[in-house]
Protein backbone atom coordinates (compact mmCIF):
# COMPACT_ATOMS: atom_id res chain seq x y z
CA UNK A 1 0.00 0.00 0.00
CA UNK A 2 1.21 3.52 -0.74
CA UNK A 3 1.92 5.69 2.34
CA UNK A 4 -1.15 7.99 2.03
CA UNK A 5 -3.46 4.99 1.66
CA UNK A 6 -1.67 3.20 4.50
CA UNK A 7 -2.15 6.20 6.80
CA UNK A 8 -5.82 6.39 5.85
CA UNK A 9 -6.18 2.69 6.64
CA UNK A 10 -4.47 3.23 9.99
CA UNK A 11 -6.80 6.14 10.81
CA UNK A 12 -9.83 3.98 9.99
CA UNK A 13 -8.51 1.06 12.05
CA UNK A 14 -7.66 3.18 15.09
CA UNK A 15 -11.00 5.02 14.76
CA UNK A 16 -13.00 1.80 14.59
CA UNK A 17 -11.10 0.24 17.50
CA UNK A 18 -11.41 3.35 19.68
CA UNK A 19 -15.10 3.56 18.78
CA UNK A 20 -15.51 -0.08 19.84
CA UNK A 21 -13.80 0.59 23.17
CA UNK A 22 -15.96 3.66 23.76
CA UNK A 23 -19.15 1.75 22.94
CA UNK A 24 -18.17 -1.00 25.38
CA UNK A 25 -17.46 1.59 28.10
CA UNK A 26 -20.92 3.10 27.49
CA UNK A 27 -22.46 -0.40 27.77
CA UNK A 28 -20.56 -0.97 31.02
CA UNK A 29 -21.93 2.30 32.40
CA UNK A 30 -25.47 1.28 31.41
CA UNK A 31 -24.98 -2.15 32.99
CA UNK A 32 -23.88 -0.55 36.26
CA UNK A 33 -26.87 1.83 36.14
CA UNK A 34 -29.16 -1.17 35.57
CA UNK A 35 -27.77 -2.84 38.68
CA UNK A 36 -27.69 0.26 40.89
CA UNK A 37 -30.71 2.35 39.88
CA UNK A 38 -33.58 2.48 42.36
CA UNK A 39 -36.17 3.61 39.79
CA UNK A 40 -37.76 0.53 38.11
CA UNK A 41 -38.35 2.61 34.97
CA UNK A 42 -34.64 3.33 34.66
CA UNK A 43 -33.79 -0.37 35.15
CA UNK A 44 -36.29 -1.34 32.46
CA UNK A 45 -34.96 1.38 30.15
CA UNK A 46 -31.37 0.17 30.55
CA UNK A 47 -32.17 -3.40 29.48
CA UNK A 48 -34.34 -2.10 26.64
CA UNK A 49 -31.55 0.02 25.10
CA UNK A 50 -28.60 -2.34 25.59
CA UNK A 51 -29.61 -4.43 22.59
CA UNK A 52 -30.15 -1.60 20.04
CA UNK A 53 -26.96 0.07 21.26
CA UNK A 54 -25.17 -3.23 20.67
CA UNK A 55 -26.46 -3.55 17.10
CA UNK A 56 -25.90 0.15 16.36
CA UNK A 57 -22.40 0.55 17.81
CA UNK A 58 -20.74 -2.57 19.28
CA UNK A 59 -21.26 -4.89 16.32
CA UNK A 60 -20.46 -2.36 13.53
CA UNK A 61 -17.34 -1.08 15.32
CA UNK A 62 -16.10 -4.60 16.09
CA UNK A 63 -16.56 -5.76 12.49
CA UNK A 64 -15.01 -2.51 11.20
CA UNK A 65 -12.04 -2.97 13.54
CA UNK A 66 -11.57 -6.54 12.30
CA UNK A 67 -11.86 -5.63 8.60
CA UNK A 68 -9.65 -2.54 8.77
CA UNK A 69 -7.11 -4.52 10.79
CA UNK A 70 -7.06 -7.22 8.11
CA UNK A 71 -6.58 -4.63 5.36
CA UNK A 72 -3.92 -2.82 7.38
CA UNK A 73 -1.89 -5.97 8.05
CA UNK A 74 -2.25 -7.51 4.61
CA UNK A 75 -1.58 -4.18 2.87
CA UNK A 76 1.63 -3.42 4.74
CA UNK A 77 4.90 -5.21 5.38
CA UNK A 78 3.68 -6.24 8.86
CA UNK A 79 1.71 -9.08 7.31
CA UNK A 80 -1.17 -10.98 8.89
CA UNK A 81 0.76 -13.90 10.40
CA UNK A 82 4.35 -12.63 10.17
CA UNK A 83 4.59 -10.96 13.58
CA UNK A 84 3.24 -12.48 16.78
CA UNK A 85 1.70 -9.21 17.99
CA UNK A 86 -0.38 -8.90 14.81
CA UNK A 87 -1.40 -12.57 14.94
CA UNK A 88 -2.33 -12.36 18.64
CA UNK A 89 -4.41 -9.24 17.97
CA UNK A 90 -6.19 -11.01 15.11
CA UNK A 91 -7.05 -13.99 17.33
CA UNK A 92 -8.25 -11.67 20.13
CA UNK A 93 -10.37 -9.64 17.69
CA UNK A 94 -11.96 -12.76 16.17
CA UNK A 95 -12.67 -14.12 19.67
CA UNK A 96 -14.17 -10.84 20.93
CA UNK A 97 -16.32 -10.37 17.81
CA UNK A 98 -17.56 -13.97 18.01
CA UNK A 99 -18.45 -13.69 21.69
CA UNK A 100 -20.16 -10.34 21.04
CA UNK A 101 -22.31 -11.79 18.24
CA UNK A 102 -23.32 -14.67 20.53
CA UNK A 103 -23.97 -12.28 23.41
CA UNK A 104 -26.34 -10.20 21.27
CA UNK A 105 -28.82 -13.07 21.75
CA UNK A 106 -28.67 -12.51 25.50
CA UNK A 107 -29.16 -8.76 25.08
CA UNK A 108 -32.17 -9.54 22.86
CA UNK A 109 -33.67 -11.76 25.55
CA UNK A 110 -33.03 -9.09 28.19
CA UNK A 111 -34.76 -6.50 25.98
CA UNK A 112 -37.72 -8.84 25.46
CA UNK A 113 -38.00 -9.34 29.22
CA UNK A 114 -37.80 -5.58 29.77
CA UNK A 115 -40.65 -5.05 27.26
CA UNK A 116 -42.80 -7.52 29.20
CA UNK A 117 -44.82 -5.49 31.75
CA UNK A 118 -45.08 -8.57 33.93
CA UNK A 119 -41.34 -8.67 34.60
CA UNK A 120 -40.25 -6.85 37.74
CA UNK A 121 -37.15 -4.63 37.99
CA UNK A 122 -35.63 -7.12 40.42
CA UNK A 123 -36.17 -9.89 37.89
CA UNK A 124 -34.46 -7.85 35.19
CA UNK A 125 -31.33 -6.95 37.16
CA UNK A 126 -28.31 -8.99 36.14
CA UNK A 127 -24.56 -8.52 36.42
CA UNK A 128 -24.06 -10.22 33.06
CA UNK A 129 -23.70 -7.03 30.90
CA UNK A 130 -21.26 -5.57 33.46
CA UNK A 131 -19.14 -8.73 33.56
CA UNK A 132 -19.07 -9.08 29.75
CA UNK A 133 -18.32 -5.38 29.18
CA UNK A 134 -15.54 -5.39 31.79
CA UNK A 135 -13.97 -8.46 30.17
CA UNK A 136 -14.25 -6.82 26.73
CA UNK A 137 -12.59 -3.64 28.01
CA UNK A 138 -9.71 -5.68 29.47
CA UNK A 139 -9.27 -7.50 26.15
CA UNK A 140 -9.41 -4.28 24.10
CA UNK A 141 -6.88 -2.58 26.40
CA UNK A 142 -4.49 -5.51 25.94
CA UNK A 143 -4.98 -5.23 22.16
CA UNK A 144 -4.32 -1.50 22.41
CA UNK A 145 -1.11 -2.13 24.37
CA UNK A 146 0.03 -4.66 21.76
CA UNK A 147 -0.57 -2.09 19.02
CA UNK A 148 1.45 0.57 20.81
CA UNK A 149 4.34 -1.55 22.13
CA UNK A 150 4.53 -3.95 19.15
CA UNK A 151 6.50 -6.57 21.11
CA UNK A 152 9.21 -8.34 19.16
CA UNK A 153 8.84 -11.80 17.73
CA UNK A 154 8.36 -13.20 14.27
CA UNK A 155 6.45 -16.36 13.52
CA UNK A 156 7.79 -19.22 11.41
CA UNK A 157 5.19 -18.22 8.80
CA UNK A 158 6.95 -15.51 6.84
CA UNK A 159 6.06 -15.45 3.16
CA UNK A 160 8.76 -13.49 1.36
CA UNK A 161 11.04 -13.49 4.41
CA UNK A 162 10.96 -9.73 5.13
CA UNK A 163 10.32 -8.39 8.61
CA UNK A 164 9.43 -4.82 7.97
Amino acid at each position, binding site marked *: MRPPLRRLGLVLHVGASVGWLGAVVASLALGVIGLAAADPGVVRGVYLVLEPIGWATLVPFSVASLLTGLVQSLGTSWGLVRH*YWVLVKLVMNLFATGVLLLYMQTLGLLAAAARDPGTTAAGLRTASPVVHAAAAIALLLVALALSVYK*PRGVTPFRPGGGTR
Partner: protein
Amino acid sequence: MYRKMVGSRAKGDVMSEPPRMPRWVKVFAIVGAVVLVLLAVMLLAGHGPGQHMGHGR
Protein backbone atom coordinates in the same frame (compact mmCIF):
# COMPACT_ATOMS: atom_id res chain seq x y z
CA MET B 1 34.29 -6.52 7.31
CA TYR B 2 32.89 -7.00 10.81
CA ARG B 3 29.53 -5.66 9.73
CA LYS B 4 29.54 -8.01 6.77
CA MET B 5 30.35 -11.03 8.94
CA VAL B 6 27.72 -10.19 11.53
CA GLY B 7 25.18 -9.60 8.80
CA SER B 8 25.91 -12.86 7.05
CA ARG B 9 25.94 -14.84 10.30
CA ALA B 10 22.62 -13.38 11.41
CA LYS B 11 21.11 -14.13 8.05
CA GLY B 12 22.47 -17.68 8.20
CA ASP B 13 20.96 -18.22 11.65
CA VAL B 14 17.57 -17.07 10.48
CA MET B 15 17.77 -19.34 7.48
CA SER B 16 18.98 -22.42 9.38
CA GLU B 17 16.73 -22.46 12.46
CA PRO B 18 13.14 -21.28 12.96
CA PRO B 19 12.67 -18.19 15.15
CA ARG B 20 11.99 -18.90 18.82
CA MET B 21 8.61 -18.08 20.28
CA PRO B 22 9.02 -15.09 22.64
CA ARG B 23 8.12 -15.51 26.30
CA TRP B 24 5.25 -13.01 26.09
CA VAL B 25 3.61 -15.13 23.37
CA LYS B 26 3.87 -18.21 25.60
CA VAL B 27 2.23 -16.26 28.45
CA PHE B 28 -0.57 -15.12 26.11
CA ALA B 29 -1.04 -18.69 24.87
CA ILE B 30 -1.32 -20.05 28.44
CA VAL B 31 -3.75 -17.30 29.50
CA GLY B 32 -5.80 -17.84 26.33
CA ALA B 33 -5.95 -21.59 26.92
CA VAL B 34 -7.07 -21.05 30.55
CA VAL B 35 -9.79 -18.63 29.38
CA LEU B 36 -11.00 -21.11 26.75
CA VAL B 37 -11.14 -23.95 29.31
CA LEU B 38 -13.07 -21.71 31.75
CA LEU B 39 -15.50 -20.75 28.97
CA ALA B 40 -16.00 -24.41 28.03
CA VAL B 41 -16.70 -25.30 31.67
CA MET B 42 -19.17 -22.39 31.99
CA LEU B 43 -20.95 -23.38 28.76
CA LEU B 44 -21.22 -26.98 29.96
CA ALA B 45 -22.56 -25.69 33.29
CA GLY B 46 -25.40 -23.89 31.51
CA HIS B 47 -23.95 -20.41 30.96
CA GLY B 48 -25.30 -18.96 27.74
CA PRO B 49 -28.00 -16.83 26.14
CA GLY B 50 -31.08 -16.66 28.33
CA GLN B 51 -29.32 -17.92 31.46
CA HIS B 52 -28.63 -14.47 32.94
CA MET B 53 -32.05 -13.21 33.90
CA GLY B 54 -33.61 -13.51 37.30
CA HIS B 55 -36.94 -14.61 35.77
CA GLY B 56 -38.72 -12.49 38.35
CA ARG B 57 -42.32 -11.62 37.72
